């Protein structure tokens, strides 16, 4: 087991700067998730750690060794591929045993390790089958098994669950988490699914266009997104954004836009005041909106017209129009609302987010 350190890592394909100055320190036994939209350089970063892609500049350390020049087999890592990459001509047992055979383990040791892994993953009855005789979920387990029998220092996962249906994905997610708790192997996990990232990661790294946007624990990213991109990427349904003007009036700071006039709470008004007179981006999470009751003051709520109603059971999503902006509010399932209804929505003033109008960094 080991830590992984990535220093000023860059990757340039001809013409494409896919990974830009990535710095990351992954602690021993930590489960770190790289998440970001398609093409942001997650896979490329992971492949550079694995040794499958050459490093344009920067350093990768596994344990305390710089591994830049080491071939994959000498890095003591195991990787789980998106399409499993099982050897189609070998049965499940041989697929899992291959890495051990190549490394010269003796037969007894190989058998016991494969059996143990098969037991953990619940595939001991499929050991004699070929990959194509397995379901997607079983193949995924074999791919996991092939990784864990080797007892490597680091696990690398590249979207291992994206070929599974929604239900199985949730189930495998839990299993991966359990395996990690049990084995404690350092893991780097790539996904574009933010829910997967939030549920699996001890820490989550959000990337965009090859640049790391923010590194933090899941709730940290959710509660204190570093910029508008992270705010919009983390959380489902996504955060609502509206461009508002900051105005200093009547001894308070106001966020104003057509249909919106919100008093900025004292706590954060201090650091927002210097943006008075400027346009900034206001962010409100759908779950921080509710239908206003008599107790809600006018400066913490706004009028909205219901356009679409999505009943999810545990909550109702209201797609509403607020002035020219559309927003989503996640409200109690007991709310009775109809399309075209006029409502007043109240917000949680402590959970407002503001982003610089130009840099989009959190204020």
């Amino acid at each position: 087991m080991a830590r992984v350190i990535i220093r000023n890592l860059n990757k340039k394909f001809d013409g494409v700067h896919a990974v830009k100055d990535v710095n990351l320190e992954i602690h021993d036994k930590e489960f770190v998730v790289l998440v970001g939209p398609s093409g942001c350089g997650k896979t490329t970063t992971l492949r550079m750690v694995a040794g499958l892609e050459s490093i344009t500049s920067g350093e990768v350390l596994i344990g305390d060794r710089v591994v830049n020049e080491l071939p994959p087999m000498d890095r003591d890592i195991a990787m789980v591929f998106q399409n499993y990459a099982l050897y189609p001509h070998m049965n499940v047992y041989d697929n899992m045993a291959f890495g051990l055979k190549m490394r010269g383990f003796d037969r007894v040791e190989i058998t016991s390790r494969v059996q143990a892994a098969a037991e953990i993953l619940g595939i001991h009855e499929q050991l004699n089958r070929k990959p194509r005789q397995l379901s997607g979920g079983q193949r995924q387990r074999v791919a996991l098994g092939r990784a864990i029998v080797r007892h490597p220092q680091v696990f690398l996962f590249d979207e291992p669950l994206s070929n599974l249906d929604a239900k199985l994905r949730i189930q495998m997610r839990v299993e991966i988490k359990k395996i990690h708790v049990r084995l404690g192997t350092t893991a780097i996990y790539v996904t574009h699914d933010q829910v997967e990232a939030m549920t699996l990661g001890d820490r989550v790294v959000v990337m965009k266009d090859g640049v790391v946007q923010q590194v933090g624990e899941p709730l940290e990213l959710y509660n204190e997104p570093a910029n508008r991109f992270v705010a919009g990427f983390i959380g489902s349904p996504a955060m609502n954004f509206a461009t508002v003007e900051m105005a200093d009036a009547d001894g308070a700071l106001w966020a104003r836009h057509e249909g919106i006039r919100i008093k900025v709470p004292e706590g954060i008004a201090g650091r927002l005041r210097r943006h008075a007179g400027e346009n900034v981006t206001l962010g409100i999470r759908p779950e921080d909106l509710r239908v206003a009751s008599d107790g809600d003051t006018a400066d913490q709520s706004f009028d909205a017209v219901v356009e679409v109603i999505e009943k999810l059971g545990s909550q109702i999503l209201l797609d509403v129009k607020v002035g020219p902006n559309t927003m989503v509010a996640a409200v109690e399932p007991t709310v009775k609302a109809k399309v075209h209804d006029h409502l007043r929505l109240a917000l949680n003033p402590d959970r407002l987010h503001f982003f610089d109008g130009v840099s989009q960094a959190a204020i």
Partner: protein
Amino acid sequence: MVVDSVAAVKSAKSYVAAPRRGPVTRILENEGWFAFFLLLPTAVLLGLFMAYPFIEGVLLALSDAKVGVPGNFVGLQNFAVLLNDSIFRIAVWNTVLYTAVTTVFKLALGLWLALLLNRHFRGKAVTRAFVLLPFIIPTVLSTFAWKWMFDPTFSVINWTLFHLGIIRTRINWLSDPGLALVSVIIVNIWRGVPFYAISLLAGLQTINPELAEAAAIDGARPWQRFRYITWPLLLPVTMVVVLFSVIQTFADFQLVYVLTGGGPANATQLFATYAYQIGVGTGLLGQGAAISLAMFPVLLVVVVVQLLYIRRVEIH
């Protein structure tokens, strides 16, 4: 608009309820007949151009026909003659040797080229096109070029070897009985490698590159990746390619005919050239047909064995 859609619904309904079917349609909807009609053209072509000549050939081999003489049925007499024909025995041995040696070299070189071409490098497309050249040029044409290259006096090969100081005297590539077969084998390999290379390359490209990456991470060195991943996955394609090639090589004619005509002193005589020499050259049509037909059991065995093997590989 409304009227239109109502009409459309109506007609759709009536179609579902009572499809109008003429007698032809009805026959074609019967799977058996439909299959028969689909197979008919192929069956006719195969019968006309494969089965009929084959049967004629068998009948010819069982007769004492000569050029201009229809001939009578003589049973297996032609084959009995072959048993005691020392040239025939040479031809059999040469053919086996020729096929075996060229196949081994063509497979090895073709595989090597395919593996190289499967990598990424600049000018890959052009290289691939060039590799195909020996295969595209008509055999007779390229073989004539080789004949010139092997010519003792004007030979580029001799000239090069001489000037490099490797040889002192001219080598008689095609007239030395020992070297003639070697020369013929070299040309056959030259012509056959592209087919192997391109076919195996196509096979290699169907292998998911992630498998090699997974194996690399699993600790397999390049040779082990080839041995345990690439080779077994390529095997079905390899078997088909070898099957085709063996059949073609076993019955090879053009190349030897142009280069040596089977000489010197039958040193390069193969089944096909000997059959031609006896049947057309000497005019003993029946005898020539018997020689051709003697190839048949051998090829049949090769085909059956390989097809069985391919099937086994595919199942497992």
